[in-house]
């Protein structure tokens, strides 16, 4: 057992570190960023891609470097250490790209993957609908094939992160309502600027507008944009969801709040409190800090297993469950330390970073699978507990929506 970098890893770490150092000014600072600025964020990702720091684990044919998850983890660690803002195309890299790699045609791979990594194109994931979020396979957006083989897509998606900036999306549609609901789905790539696609930003409780409603009104998509076989969309979507699992919460990366940033904040503020208050704050902070350590080292165990060839399964979701909980604890604690300012949306001197962090976190317990759904997955797939009885089994989609 050790935490040392292997010689290869150490060499890689120093490459990554010096690249970041060299481009410090162009890369910007995470704390200055409230929402994604389209142009700047694309430029930043392109710079990082050209420096070899985006998509290392992707196959070379896909524009990556065929590298290891450990290399990726090192990049994440170094970017976070240097306070570099996150990549704009995270959904593209974490979810859409892997789906194209596994199920796309050679032509699709050629056209899309490298541009996706450079953020020449931004991607979004068009799965959730007003009537089907957790119960994703209940979706209603229709795709109908016409005589020339192309497809016409109609329906509505919702909560689509970055749809307003995206160039492409992967969209899950229903192509056959007369079979069981998981059977009749098909996945496509759609250009977001195509005729008939309307994107309407939705304002989030945090005040920002990173997600959207997306309407499809007879959007024509050629058959060559299909991902996987007709009727096989559920299996294709599972690739997306598995990759999502690892992107959110695998590897012990911190969600929302960095514990060390919080520690600096607490260290700065605690001296001004009465000794009774200090003891309470230390109690809260100590408990939360232990949780972050547990999550971090569990992530290291997962990474070690992956680097020995294990495939991360549903147990990777544990990191997201625990991570969203502790992120909230840390945010609440941080805001409380602002004293009277805690009751306002920003401090008297106009800073809102802690309040913003607090307001962003409820979404993390919903996006990418709610806490409840993740607990179901862990309970059934990892602990082996019996599945819930379901009312939609053994009937067609059409019957299930009656």
């Amino acid at each position: 057992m050790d935490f040392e970098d292997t010689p290869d890893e150490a060499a890689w770490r120093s490459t990554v570190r010096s690249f970041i150092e060299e481009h410090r000014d162009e890369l910007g600072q995470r704390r200055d960023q409230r929402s994604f600025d389209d142009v700047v964020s694309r430029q930043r990702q392109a710079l990082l891609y050209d420096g070899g720091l985006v998509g290392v684990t992707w196959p070379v044919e896909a524009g990556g470097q065929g590298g290891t998850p450990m290399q990726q983890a090192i990049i994440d660690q170094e970017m976070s250490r240097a306070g570099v803002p996150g990549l704009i195309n995270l959904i593209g890299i974490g979810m859409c790209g892997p789906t194209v790699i596994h199920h796309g045609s050679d032509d699709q791979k050629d056209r899309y993957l490298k541009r996706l990594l450079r953020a020449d194109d931004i991607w979004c994931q068009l799965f959730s609908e007003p009537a089907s979020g957790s119960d994703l396979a209940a979706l209603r957006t229709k795709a109908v094939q016409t005589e020339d083989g192309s497809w016409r897509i109609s329906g509505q998606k919702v909560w689509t992160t970055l749809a307003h900036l995206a160039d492409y999306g992967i969209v899950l549609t229903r192509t056959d309502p007369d079979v069981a609901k998981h059977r009749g789905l098909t996945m496509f790539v759609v250009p977001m600027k195509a005729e008939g696609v309307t994107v309407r930003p939705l304002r989030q409780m945090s005040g920002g507008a990173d997600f959207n409603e997306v309407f499809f009104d007879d959007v024509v998509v050629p058959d060559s944009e299909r991902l996987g076989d007709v009727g096989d969309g559920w299996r294709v979507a599972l690739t997306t969801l598995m990759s999502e699992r690892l992107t959110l919460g695998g590897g012990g990366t911190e969600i929302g709040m960095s514990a060390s940033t919080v520690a600096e904040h607490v260290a700065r503020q605690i001296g001004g409190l009465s000794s009774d208050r200090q003891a309470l704050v230390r109690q809260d902070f100590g408990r939360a800090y232990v949780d972050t350590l547990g999550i971090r080292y569990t992530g290291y165990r997962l990474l070690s297993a992956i680097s020995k060839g294990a495939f991360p399964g549903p147990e990777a979701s544990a990191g997201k469950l625990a991570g969203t909980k502790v992120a909230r604890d840390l945010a609440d604690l941080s805001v409380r330390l602002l004293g009277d300012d805690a009751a306002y949306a920003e401090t008297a001197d106009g800073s809102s970073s802690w309040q913003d962090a607090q307001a962003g976190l409820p979404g993390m317990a919903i996006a990418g699978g709610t806490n409840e759904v993740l607990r179901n997955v862990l309970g059934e797939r990892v602990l082996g507990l019996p599945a819930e009885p379901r009312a939609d089994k053994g009937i067609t989609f059409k019957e299930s929506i009656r």
Partner: protein
Amino acid sequence: MNFDLDDEQRDLASAAGDFLRGAASPADARAMLDSDDPAGAEPQPGRAALVSSGFATITVPEDLGGGGGSLLDLAVVAEQAGRVLAGPSFVGYARAAVLLAGDDDRLRALADGSTSYAVVDGDGPTLDAVGADRFLSLRGDDLVCGPGTVTTRAPMDPTRGLGQVSVSDGDVVATDARLRWDHALRVGRVVLAAEGLGTAARALEIGIEYAKERQAFGRAIGSYQAVKHSLVDVYVQIENLRSLVWWAAWAADQAPDELPLAAAAAKGAVSTTLQAAAETLIQVHGGIGFTWEHDAHLFWRRAKVDRFLLGDDVGAFDEVARLALAAAAAVEAESVGAAR
């Protein structure tokens, strides 16, 4: 990075599991509670068997009759002991091995079982005071070893052998021993956390088994989310505890600078995790879980007592906070200095 047990450690864990399952069980813990003198009853496997198995003294050097192993080795064994509520605790052996370093005669006596040591923390309850014949304690800054008188009271968990010890004048084993004492205490916390990890993991397993079998309203109770989700929450805590225990044991062996934080984190985490696991175990069993006959309360007793051993959870979280905040303040001071 290779944060995982190696094959030898896995083999060790499995050999220790075989031995301990054959030598102790929750039924033994129950027999102690049911005996006429629960405070004085002998836990299983007992000192003699633990010592002769070699597992208890893994961290004693080989040339003195021990196993010459690492604390991580001992931690994987202690986890197995926790699964069957074995007594006495591996904590005492681990602490004694650190405290007696350099005193070859006493270490030999620890390893061959001819002397049974217990470590006395001031006036509080001493772990495995029952059945010990020599007591290690701190007098001023001197580490002393001598006989003592043990007063026992009705135990919450008899497997812990708790008693109040008044130490008679003993021999000085080492002077200026404060740092060694603190180190031994941290090593003890790691081993206590490893035992608690095993106890919690076993409690979860028993809960899962029952949740698959027990039917209510026409289906297995494990298919109800209230039951399923509470078991999952325990699972998530246990996985994080496992990581903290391994990290802390590794730090004791390889990175002493990290040990204070890691040991306090493991101590705090095991307190909350084991309690959650034990309480969930009872809840999942419904009425039967609240009976004397069911094993659940034996796990619960461990949880309710262990949280107070070697310092309590509140103190552990406070220590974690102090260490992390001091480190953060140092980083800040450095960057302010650099900016000037």
